[in-house]
């Protein structure tokens, strides 16, 4: 079965150098399912999310591969068309709710502008839709909140608003980039639950970027483990937590702290595993020949 989002053989590198950042990444995300992208800092998990949404920094160039969104290759359509496609079908839940809302504009227009200006909705319809999604994310007094500025709301409230805003246009795909990392632990749990509920209710495909395996176990159906820009394991959540296949995945799982036995469970990833993973990546690089002229 072909997914709503289909990434095939995606390689990216730092512009002007040979440094590979993504190494032939394959990811398939069927409509309505949730995939976690896990890995340590710098493994390339956020970069995949950015590539899908078309907001990679200029210094990163895509060398080869396909990003199929609803069976259209985003890398083959002209930039303006790409922007329109992504704007209409995908949305982002950003990492830091404190910087993701414009401080000098009221909440209401920040949700409705996109519906009116990009999707061509009527103002009244956009406003009632905004109220609807704010109610859905349990914002009290949504009419009043629409008129407030971001600084008048707490971090948790702002993250709820960002989630509401992401779901407002009924996108088929949402990329959540570490949506709970900037929140404190008690709020994290509520936000995760909220994202899960909305995802299930709306049947949205969700690409969930995180470094927290605990989060993955609660939210995701499948996951991709990334190391140095390479997918080292692509599996379902049940199989991963029961028996991870790749040595790096095993080490990653072993490194997760457990509150049943805090002292014993905090294991760093062994050097041998890192060396083996790096050797694998190096062998992969040696065998890799970019398809000529496929600069994205």
């Amino acid at each position, binding site marked *: 079965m072909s997914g709503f989002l289909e990434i095939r053989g995606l390689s990216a590198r730092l512009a002007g150098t040979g440094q590979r950042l993504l190494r032939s990444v394959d990811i398939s995300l069927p409509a309505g399912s949730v995939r976690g992208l896990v890995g340590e800092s710098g493994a390339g998990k956020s970069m995949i999310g950015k590539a899908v949404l078309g907001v990679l920094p200029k210094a990163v160039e895509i060398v080869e591969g396909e990003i199929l969104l609803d069976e259209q290759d985003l890398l083959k359509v002209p930039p303006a068309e790409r922007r329109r496609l992504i704007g209409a079908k995908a949305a982002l839940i950003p*990492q830091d709710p404190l*910087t*993701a809302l414009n401080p*000098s504009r009221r909440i209401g227009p920040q949700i409705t502008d996109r519906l009116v*200006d990009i999707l061509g909705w009527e103002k009244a319809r956009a406003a009632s839709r905004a109220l609807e999604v704010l109610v859905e994310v349990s914002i009290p007094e949504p009419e009043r909140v629409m008129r407030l500025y971001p*600084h*008048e709301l707490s971090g948790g409230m702002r993250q709820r608003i960002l989630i509401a805003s992401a779901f407002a246009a009924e996108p088929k795909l949402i990329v959540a980039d570490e949506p709970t990392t900037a929140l404190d632990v008690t709020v994290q749990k509520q936000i995760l639950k909220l994202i899960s509920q909305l995802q299930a209710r709306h049947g949205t495909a969700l690409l969930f970027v995180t470094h927290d395996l605990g989060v993955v176990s609660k939210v995701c159906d499948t996951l991709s483990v990334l190391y140095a820009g390479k997918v080292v394991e692509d599996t379902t959540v049940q199989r991963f937590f029961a028996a991870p296949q790749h040595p790096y995945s095993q080490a990653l799982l072993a490194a997760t702290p457990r509150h049943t036995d805090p002292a014993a469970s905090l294991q760093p990833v062994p050097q041998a595993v890192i060396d083996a993973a790096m050797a694998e990546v190096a062998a992969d690089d040696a065998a890799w020949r970019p398809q000529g002229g496929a600069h994205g």
Partner: protein
Amino acid sequence: MLDGRGLIRRRAGARLWLSGLWLALFVLAAVLAPLISPQDPLAQDLMLERLPPAWMAGSEPGYWLGTDSLGRDVLTRIIYGAQVALAVALVAGLATCLIGSALGLVAGFYRGWADRIISRIVDIWMAFPPVLFAILLIAVLGTGLSSVILAIVIIDWTRFCRVVRAETLNQSKMDYVHSAKVAGFTRLRTLLSEILPNVLPTIVALLTLEMGIAIIVEAILSFVNLSISTDQSTWGGMIAEGRTSIHQAWWVLVFPLIALFFTVLSFAQFGEGLRERFDPVLR
């Protein structure tokens, strides 16, 4: 939903009110000069030369701040001088602000070749000593109010450009600018609705500062006799004249200086006050 702004607001209040009060007086004086001036600004009377201010021995009624060496009333000339100062502050300040901010926004947001060209020009521009640059420009443009204003704009747009560019760069990195891109907004739309409102408090603070600076530049040019013809009274011109008789009649120098000082100070403080009061981020 309190965020501790109460305290800061109260402090900004005094600053805003005091500077606002002085600026209101300044604007009123400039606009109503013919109605409120006690004397004719150009009437010379050699019988009344170098009269001291009203509270000193030997003063004449009707000449509150004394007269200069040609017998002209100092208070009247300060009031008329406010007209020139106000015109320069408004026109030169706004023009400088518009040109500098627009270029700064473009350079900071679009980056690339536009940024490289604008930033290099700013670097080169700022290497000129401003006062000498102004004198040179006046020598080319000729004296007169419009030349003075033009010279100020030509020299000072870089101040706005540099600060606005830096602020725009900061704003461009924010997640909401990112989100606007994902949502599919055009670049221009993102610049106008996501970035400009957040740079605006900085622009307003700079604008008021620039108004003060424009008044100073005009005064400097008047001081070296390169501004406006001498029959129009300006603060800089009065200071230049007062300098020659400082030992006999200090008031000719001191009162226009005080007017200049408080006006420039008030512009700067007013801008800061506005920023503290209205900047939603309160950095």
